[in-house]
């Protein structure tokens, strides 16, 4: 909210500079985001009076004015069409500075010298106050030669304050003045009391009735101006509205806005003659009902929206915006002013749904002060009287269905001390009374306060403690490390597992990335994930920022591949290995709403055709990545089993399924070349994804026996069908090798000439040993021979 410092000081005299006040307001909860001095660039401008005005002797599109400056006279050329002799205007002599920083001088227009310039509203930095095109014509009563800044009260500054949603009461000068009085030592409050209006006098306007047909509007008041003259607002009003960020429309609409800024109560003006009937009913909208607001927009309403209707026809969307059908126009002759209380949540819902954040809906959503609803109409009455040229009637027609009790809230010594470590109830009471809270009972341990209706945010004792705390200043609360530790803090398995695995990955050259949890839904297609796969059934955002970010990921792979693409597109050529740890979001099983699973995934790309010194050593393949996966799992003391597997996006011949204790825990694969082609990633790309939850139970690290007697080595070479995994051959060797077989290492795999088609030769080095003694050669020969016989019986061809 933008607040004029001078205007604010009319309601509360603040003995500080704007900067000092801003600092204090910020610390106590009204964050002042900036202090602007809208006219601070202006220098040397004065009021000039146009004494004579003639058409330029050589150019018919220009005028030559003789401007009186309180003594001297100068000659000025202008193209503006709106001047008359006798007008007073802003004038800048040579050397003075206008809003955009231009220093004025003398200029010649076709042989006529123009000294300085007569200025438009824009040139003095306030385009919003112009009421016509051309030079700004100043109100009567200003003297030629007078300082312009002083004359128009432009030496003001604007505080841009961000008001928290609980403090609707601060969206008014009266409310903010009260706050300043409470938080700024030495300030004095002015003009707080509002006069209640006269009610019940029938007045001169015949009126048939007000009906409240929806509890969303418990109080509605209407007053009338039977005869008005529509014209621009007085200059002072236009300037204040401009300073407050509100566009000037005409004197009637401006009046409602001006008064709203003072009391916080939004008002609406209907063209009385355009109301379909001399009757108003407030009712709930019907689902699908259509309404055109005065900004020309058509809206489809929903149940729950509140409508002001007249003769059955909607004339305003309550608390949000009036209708085009009854808005004030240049032809308006008579006006009805509305001031009402609308339920905050109702207005808030409508405004949010329709995206109509207006000054009115903003205030109604945060709750207006019900006690100001009717007095605001008498403020308006006074304002219009001053404006003159109107016939206004002070009498107000009112209908209400509810009364507002003032809440009473206790403040106890015990609770206040608990939070603030301070228990001076007497001082606390003084603080609260500055905020217009009335102490109605007092004992040594407890005070009870009556809360003004403007402070809807105060409802429990903690709220009062906050008021005391923030006004006293939180710097007065000491600082201590919380006592009473009940136990040690625990990082927990998930963080622990994540940390170990991440450090292991980084040590192996992987770069940690974090990508968005929402992805482009096209990835499901790009990765060829079939409908039967739960990973194709991710959750969609109903209101994404863009389609690219509209599906909750079911695998970490898209983020990694996309990061790879991003890097490649920006010209990255070196080998790169990326990993991410994060959650994926899967459809729930067995009545679960959904499942979130913590994953770790990595990709490796071998780099683009580029000469690298030690290239062969840097090339990854599925087996080199297998070593990485084993290392990552090893950091948790886990060793997964690898078996041939399949993934929709995985190379059919180069995909492994990973299991821990028989349960699937991830995959290792080379991405399908076809997919990489479509993604424009020159392959290959190797990838893995692990379920971190299955790595949570850290296997106790175990240590082996100390070996003191050297092993005896024998080799064995055998031929096995290609379809038989190496792991299963190893398993046979272990099973058949006897208890002295200590270790075996596969050292050669061969297929080709000399070996039957469909088979391959595997050569192992076997170590036999006994922990208690050195084995003799003959002993080992016998065991080894037995193993060979066993293998033959099993069907292996031994070489």
């Amino acid at each position, binding site marked *: 909210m933008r607040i004029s410092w001078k205007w604010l000081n009319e309601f509360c005299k603040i003995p500080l500079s704007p900067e000092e006040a801003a600092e204090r307001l910020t610390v106590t909860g009204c964050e002042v985001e900036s202090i602007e001095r809208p006219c601070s660039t202006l220098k040397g401008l004065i009021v000039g009076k146009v004494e004579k005005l003639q058409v330029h002797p050589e150019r018919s599109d220009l005028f030559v004015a003789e401007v009186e400056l309180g003594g001297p006279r100068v000659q000025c050329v202008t193209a503006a069409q709106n001047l008359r002799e006798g007008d007073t205007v802003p004038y800048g002599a040579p050397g003075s500075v206008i809003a955009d920083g231009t220093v004025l001088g003398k200029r010649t227009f076709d042989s006529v010298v123009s000294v300085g310039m007569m200025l438009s509203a824009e040139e003095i930095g306030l385009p919003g106050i112009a009421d016509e095109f051309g030079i700004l014509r100043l109100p009567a009563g200003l003297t030629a030669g007078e300082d312009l800044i002083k004359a128009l009260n432009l030496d003001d500054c604007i505080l841009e304050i961000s008001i928290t949603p609980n403090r609707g009461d601060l969206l008014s000068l009266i409310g903010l003045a009260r706050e300043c009085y409470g938080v700024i030592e030495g300030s004095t409050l002015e003009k707080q009391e509002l006069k209640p209006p006269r009610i019940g006098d029938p007045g001169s306007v015949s009126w048939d009735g007000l009906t409240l047909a929806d509890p969303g509007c418990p109080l509605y008041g209407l007053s009338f101006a039977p005869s008005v003259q529509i014209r621009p607002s007085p200059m002072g009003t236009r300037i204040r509205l401009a300073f407050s960020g509100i566009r000037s429309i005409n004197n009637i609409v401006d009046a409602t806005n001006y008064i709203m800024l003072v009391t916080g109560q939004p008002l609406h003006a209907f063209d009385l003659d355009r109301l379909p009937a001399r009757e108003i009913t407030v009712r709930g909208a019907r689902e699908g009902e259509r309404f055109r607001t005065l900004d020309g927009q058509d809206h489809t309403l929903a149940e729950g929206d509140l409508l002001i209707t007249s003769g059955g026809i909607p004339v305003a969307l309550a608390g949000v915006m009036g209708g085009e059908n009854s808005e004030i126009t240049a032809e308006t002759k008579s006006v009805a002013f509305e001031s009402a209380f609308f339920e905050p949540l109702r207005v808030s819902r409508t405004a949010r749904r329709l995206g109509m954040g207006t000054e009115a809906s903003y205030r109604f959503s945060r709750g207006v002060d019900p006690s100001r609803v009717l007095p605001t109409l008498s403020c308006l009455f006074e304002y219009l009287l001053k404006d003159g040229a109107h016939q206004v009637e002070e009498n107000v027609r009112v209908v209400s269905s509810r009364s507002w009790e003032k809440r009473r809230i206790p403040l106890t010594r015990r609770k206040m001390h608990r939070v603030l470590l301070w228990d001076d109830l007497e001082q606390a009471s003084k603080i609260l009374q500055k905020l217009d809270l009335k102490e109605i009972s007092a004992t040594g341990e407890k005070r009870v306060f009556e809360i003004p209706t403007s402070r809807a945010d105060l409802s429990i004792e903690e709220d009062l403690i906050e008021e005391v705390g923030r006004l006293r200043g939180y710097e007065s609360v000491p600082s201590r490390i919380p006592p009473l530790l009940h136990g040690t*803090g625990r990082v*927990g398995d998930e963080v622990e597992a994540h940390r170990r695995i991440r450090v292991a990955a980084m040590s192996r050259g992987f*770069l*940690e990335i974090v990508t968005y949890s929402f992805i482009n839904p096209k990835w499901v297609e790009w990765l060829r994930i079939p409908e039967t796969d739960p990973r194709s059934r991710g959750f969609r955002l109903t209101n994404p920022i863009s389609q690219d970010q509209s599906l909750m990921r079911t695998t970490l792979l898209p983020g990694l591949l996309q990061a790879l693409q991003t890097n490649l597109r920006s010209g990255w050529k070196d080998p790169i290995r990326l990993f991410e740890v994060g959650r994926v979001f899967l459809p729930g099983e067995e009545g679960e709403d959904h499942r979130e699973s913590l994953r770790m995934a990595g990709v490796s790309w071998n780099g683009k055709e580029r000469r690298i010194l030690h290239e062969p050593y840097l090339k990854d393949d599925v087996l080199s990545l297998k070593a990485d996966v084993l290392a990552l799992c090893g950091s948790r003391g886990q060793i997964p089993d690898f078996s041939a597997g399949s993934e929709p996006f995985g190379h059919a011949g180069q995909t492994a399924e990973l299991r821990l204790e028989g349960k699937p825990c991830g995959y290792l694969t080379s991405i399908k070349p076809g997919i990489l082609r479509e993604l424009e990633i020159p392959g290959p790309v190797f990838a893995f994804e692990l379920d971190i939850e299955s790595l949570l139970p850290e296997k106790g690290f175990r240590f082996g026996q100390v070996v003191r007697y050297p092993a005896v080595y024998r080799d064995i070479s055998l031929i096995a069908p290609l379809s038989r995994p190496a792991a299963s051959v190893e398993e046979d060797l272990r099973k058949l090798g006897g208890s002295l077989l200590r270790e075996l290492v596969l050292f050669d795999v061969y297929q080709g000439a000399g070996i039957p088609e469909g088979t391959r030769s595997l050569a192992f080095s076997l170590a036999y040993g006994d922990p208690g003694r050195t084995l003799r050669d003959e002993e080992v020969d016998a065991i080894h021979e037995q193993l060979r016989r066993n293998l033959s019986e099993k069907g292996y061809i031994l070489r």
Partner: protein
Amino acid sequence: METINAKIANIRENMMQELDSAGSSESLQALRVRYLGKRGELTQMLRSLGNLPPEKRPAAGQALNELRQEIEAALEARSLLIARAEDEAREATDFVDVTLPPRGRGWGGFHPVVQTMNEIIDIFVGMGFSVAYGPEIEDDFHNFEALNIPPHHPARDMQDTFYLDNGRLLRTHTSPVEVRAMLRWGAPLRIIVPGKVYRRDSDQTHSPMFHQLEGLLIDEDVSLADLKGCLNTFVGAIFGRPLDSRFRASYFPFTEPSLEMDVECFACSGRNPSCRICKGTGWLEILGCGMTHPNVLRYGGIDPDRYNGFAWGMGPDRVAMLKYGLTDLRVLFEGHGSFLTGGGY
């Protein structure tokens, strides 16, 4: 006897001379053969001892053996010298330019936010907080209602929410875990909740996904003083030195009182009016906090008359950006190798 002694002296002299001039292990080997080999001079003399009269044999034998030991020791010493010289010569030619690029893989690299998050976790674990987690896909109840934010409340405007096709939403803060944790563990309670949160907002300083770390302490007689102490300790730890702080009044529906914590700008300490980090204010907004609202305690099944507590929520992304001097939040989530490796890899 004299002849033998003369011979021995002669051999010793020759031998030592030749030894001095032997420059390689080959020439050394030749010397060894010449004197100590099967037909070596010394060996032959030993064999010829039998020709001496018996009474002279012991003395001659002893003299010869001494000579033999002497020669062996000299050969050994010389051979060590030569081996070392030869090694040195070989090492001089077997040269590796250690400024060549390494072979194999180096250190990968960490993500600044994950790293910062871990550092923050450790600081609070040290103060007795344990890590708790909750779902990122939440329901309206936990994300809003149980946190004292009724439907259509203007406070919801503070957090523009993503909704899902299953009627759920993406949590807009880590606060929903507060209520879940209270219901699960009850009071007293000290937890921190690190995690991702989502808001429908995207510009240079807003990302639709970002990180938060929530903290909650519930006990008997908890004061704002405890909150200040805890968070001041944190700030000192994360930025490496104690920094001034100030607590401003603010508003969050789930805390009462509500505060925002600013810390002294660690770059300029408020001394540089055109400081880029604090924009000349001297303060950095770092987190929101407050005393847990009694309604929230009630939703968590905790008696607000007996227990109270405080909570805070901070942005590790922002802390990381401050720590590492980063200016654009969104690049944190794009996986640029050039950014994450600082240009090199």
